[in-house]
């Protein structure tokens, strides 16, 4: 990946250190638009760390240090002059464990847009409905918007978190094992949702479930000990990996 081509979204020599421990090592990677890229690899290989550096979430971890560049529309997001707060609005994120705010369902969604200046009740109502619809949750919650988000089931909470991420109209969505704490039915819903959403945005998803990666992603990247071992078209990577280690991993020799 050369800087001259100015990829729309990707990393260049991105490393993440926790103290002196290099958890992610010089990753060069590009995420094409309107597609899903899956990150797989054994526990502790740096998938989450890498994902979190994409929206500068590691800024919040005192011991973490990120070097290298993250290009988005020709701008280096990792530059210290780039405002992390503004860029995060463009890059949504969802975690493994649903983490709704301890507020009403409505407030969970209206919260972000209100920060960013949308004050009118009508507009907010619209955003809430829109976001919940896109997260396939509207029908289930439309009559209880004032209830606490914590009263939802785990699967619903997770979709609420996705809706919340969508509420500020991000261009990119980062998902860190979004379904691994969910039951099969909810998992299915979330997967459908991902496939639906990629029509509009760019998605990066971390998963430990290779079948899931195979089902939802267009591209898959295999990480091991902080290194990007292989990054390819999903079908190609699962059917005919070029790297011996990838092969062992997807065949379940370890992990």
């Amino acid at each position, binding site marked *: 990946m050369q800087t001259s081509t100015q990829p729309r979204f990707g990393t260049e020599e991105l490393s993440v250190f926790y103290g002196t421990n290099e958890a992610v090592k010089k990753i060069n990677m590009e995420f094409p638009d309107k597609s899903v890229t899956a990150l797989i690899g054994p526990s502790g290989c740096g998938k989450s760390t890498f994902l979190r550096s994409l929206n500068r979430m590691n800024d919040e971890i005192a011991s973490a240090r990120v070097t290298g560049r993250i290009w988005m529309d020709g701008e280096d997001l990792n530059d210290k002059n780039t405002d992390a707060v503004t860029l995060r609005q*463009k890059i949504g994120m969802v975690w493994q464990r649903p*983490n709704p*705010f301890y507020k009403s369902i409505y407030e969970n969604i209206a*919260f972000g847009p209100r920060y960013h200046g949308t004050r009118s009740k009508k507009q907010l109502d619209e955003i809430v409905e829109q976001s919940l619809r896109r997260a396939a949750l509207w029908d289930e919650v439309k009559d209880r918007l004032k209830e606490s988000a914590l009263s939802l089931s785990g699967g619903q909470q997770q979709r609420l978190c996705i809706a919340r991420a969508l509420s500020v109209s991000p261009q990119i969505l980062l998902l860190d094992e979004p379904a691994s704490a969910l039951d099969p039915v909810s998992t299915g819903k979330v997967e459908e949702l991902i496939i639906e959403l990629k029509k509009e945005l760019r998605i990066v998803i971390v998963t430990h479930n290779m079948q899931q990666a195979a089902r939802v992603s267009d591209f898959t990247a295999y990480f091991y000990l902080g290194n990007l071992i292989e990054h390819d078209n999903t079908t190609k990577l699962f059917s005919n990996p070029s790297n011996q280690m990838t092969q062992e991993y997807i065949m379940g020799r370890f992990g």
Partner: protein
Amino acid sequence: MENNKAAANNKRRGFARHQREDMIGKIYTYLCVLMLIVVIVSIVYFVASKGLATFITDGVSPFEFLFGTHWSPDGTNPSFGALPFIAGSFVVSMLAALIAGPLSICAALFMTEIVPGKGKRILQPVIELLSGIPSVVYGFIGLTVLVPFISTVSGGNTLGYGVAAGALVLSVMILPTITSIAADALASLPRGMREASYALGATRWQTIYRVILPTLAPSLWTGIILGIARAFGEALAVQMVIGNAPFLPKSLLTSASTLTSVITLNMTNTSTGSVQNNVLWSMALMLLFMTFVFIIIVRLLQRRNKL
């Protein structure tokens, strides 16, 4: 083989070895817990029996005690209005919380939100030391630094002893209490909550103000209530700086008294069984009662705590 033999040996003595051991453990720990209960029951019983004697034996009207503003136990027409002290206790502890509360919460935010990691390494020992400084030392510093200072600031019109000095000394004393509870609450907040807000493009202050503080409000209030409780029961430091005049606190710079200061000043100069002595026990009972009230408030707050 060996094991079986040992087991058989144990069996013969009635109880297996592990059952004997567990019996010992249970008896020991249960006795310790029983001790705790005995202690608390006897404190409440003894203090109450002395404290109620004022009203039962000596015939002082509880209404006068609680609402009377006139304190003159040795007068020719003795009157036992303890309201000035009750009010004094409330006023100084509330004021102390008013000063210490925001400061403590800021300190806790500094530790967990603004400079996570390093902030804690700096402030944690500071907080621990502040809480380790004995209350008489606070009183002494209040007496030698704060009181003259307040007197000077007031243009020499007052002695410096009074509500303001008491509240300031107390506020430093309860700072560690509130800070550590607030810091614990902040640390217990699921990491994801913070990140979710950041991920929406919220600034740190928006995250603190809109997400963290509302979510943790019950815990923060718990800290403040426990701080007030601590201030309410503190005796010597306040007594040394508050001036101890038995009047309702009318302004920050006038001398007032608290329940604890009246007790410390007069308990040993009155003889057991006299009404002057019993009424001091009634104040001790009042302190106990308030402890229960504070605990109940804390319990109610915790019930509201969703974490």
